């Protein structure tokens, strides 16, 4: 696939070698592709299928099963607000509403300038810092409207 960088392709080759069966490399390979492209387009799914000797349906089954894998592009910053119990007890609803008002989008949507995508997620494993959210792969806890302003202002 021409659109993947040689660096990613090398990483993919290395990762495939680590497993006794090619299919086991599927999740790591999909992570590598999404890290570079931002999502996993159909074209990539077909390419991975061929790489790992899988029927394409097997790849799409996996991409659509796991919450973290995306089939469509999203904003530059993925704001994933936890909506599980400890965070709800700590006011996650208010945090979510604050973001909805501030960014003028609903969960599942992306801002018009392509910067932010807002989603709700389940427990992130940071309940002692509730309410939490992830911005791409970074964790933020003890969120307040002020803290959110600070975080978002610091993002390009």
């Amino acid at each position, binding site marked *: 696939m021409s659109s993947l960088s040689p660096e990613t392709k090398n990483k993919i080759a290395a990762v495939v070698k*680590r*497993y*006794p*069966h*090619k*299919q*086991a*490399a*599927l*999740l*790591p390979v*999909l*992570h590598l592709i999404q890290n570079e492209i931002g999502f996993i387009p159909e074209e990539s799914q077909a390419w991975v299928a061929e790489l*790992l000797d899988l029927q394409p349906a*097997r790849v799409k*089954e*996996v991409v659509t*099963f*796991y*919450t*973290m*894998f995306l089939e469509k592009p999203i904003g530059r910053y993925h704001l994933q607000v936890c*909506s*599980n*119990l*400890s965070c*709800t*007890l*700590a006011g996650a609803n208010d945090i979510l509403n604050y973001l909805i008002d501030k960014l003028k989008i609903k969960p599942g949507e992306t801002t018009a300038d392509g910067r932010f995508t807002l989603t709700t*997620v*389940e*427990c*992130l*494993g*940071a*309940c*002692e*810092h*509730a309410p939490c959210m*992830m911005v791409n*792969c*970074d964790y933020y806890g003890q969120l307040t409207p002020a803290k959110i302003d600070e975080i978002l202002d610091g993002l390009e």
Partner: protein
Amino acid sequence: MTEKEKYLTSLFGLKNLHQLEIYLENGGYEAAKKALLEMKPTDILAEVKAANLRGRGGAGFPAGVKWGFVPKETDKPKYLCVNADEGEPGTFKDKYIMSHNPHLLLEGIIITAYCVGIHHAFIYIRGEYEMIAQRLEKAIAEAKKKGFLGQNILHSQFDLEVIVHRGAGAYICGEETALLESLEGKRGHPRLKPPFPASVGLFNCPTVINNVETIANVPFIILKGAEWFTRVGLPKDGGTRIFGVSGPVKKPGIYELPLGTSLKELIFTYAGGMREGKKLKAVIPGGLSAPILTAEEIDITLDFESLVNAGSMLGSGAVIVIDQETSMLDVLRVVSKFYAHESCGQCTPCRIGVSWINKIVNRLAQGGGQPDDLETIARLAAAIKGKTLCPLGDAAAMPILAIVEKFKDELLGSTKH
């Protein structure tokens, strides 16, 4: 019981503990040396069995017994999968072990693998813990360089490769057979048991699956012995647990305490009690899948049997505290939403039943509830319990049943009369 009985987290305050030199300076890899160079695999197994080390992921199955199920004679390779999926809501302890002391986990893995005759170990870590996965990879590289991993570890002639494998956002992959499916590159659909992973596991080979904290306890059992382990904890339930406390308490966080600690003590002494102006309403004692306890029911010790007798479970040791201002309907809403979202969809009762309950609860939450809705929810939950392909059905049904039973009056108030 005092803090000086802490062993697992006692070094967590040390700067750069995750680096190999610091770990070594503080007694790191001594247990691995003892195990590989002075003990036989059968000795290790006997010690772990005598220690009554129960699984710390949620199910509480004795680790030594599990290891013993792996066939001794087999020409298939054997595998170890460390369950670092940490998806049970309220749980965050393994994150601390892996980020503060990754080498402790690696040391536990080495001893476990040596005991069972395993040469390939996978750490299945939830996808969201990307930074921690990178830290683990660095630790593995360090360990390999120093001869603690790879071929002929410490000249013991024992080989071991450890691979970090990230999940991608699926709570069900914390269930051991779904974890195996995910590791094999498929959807996280749990498998029928029997056969059990000890005989037919990863790639159809004998496999041991253990939680991070369980494995992290192994070096201490080797160094200080099974007898010490049971003295620290309880005779049938050795060692400490790393409890997590979250909710409106003054000091949410992890607390390493011996099994048998009182729940009241954990909340009001160690975690500082309720925050200013908050009163206790209910407690979930072991992660979202553990049935809820009312404020009147928290006079109980945190160990496997006591909680089972109280109709709940120790689970992952994740204590979630709920205050009086919280509506139980909201709690019910969050619970049913979670399980509906995480159901893998394979079996009929969970796929349709949990979603059905979720739909009713949402209708209740939006003001469209009817008096018999609670009965329906209870009936559906009872129809799911014990009838599903994997424990997620129970994990959904039992908490929902407990909330509906114990807070019936409050919930009835939210239905139309």
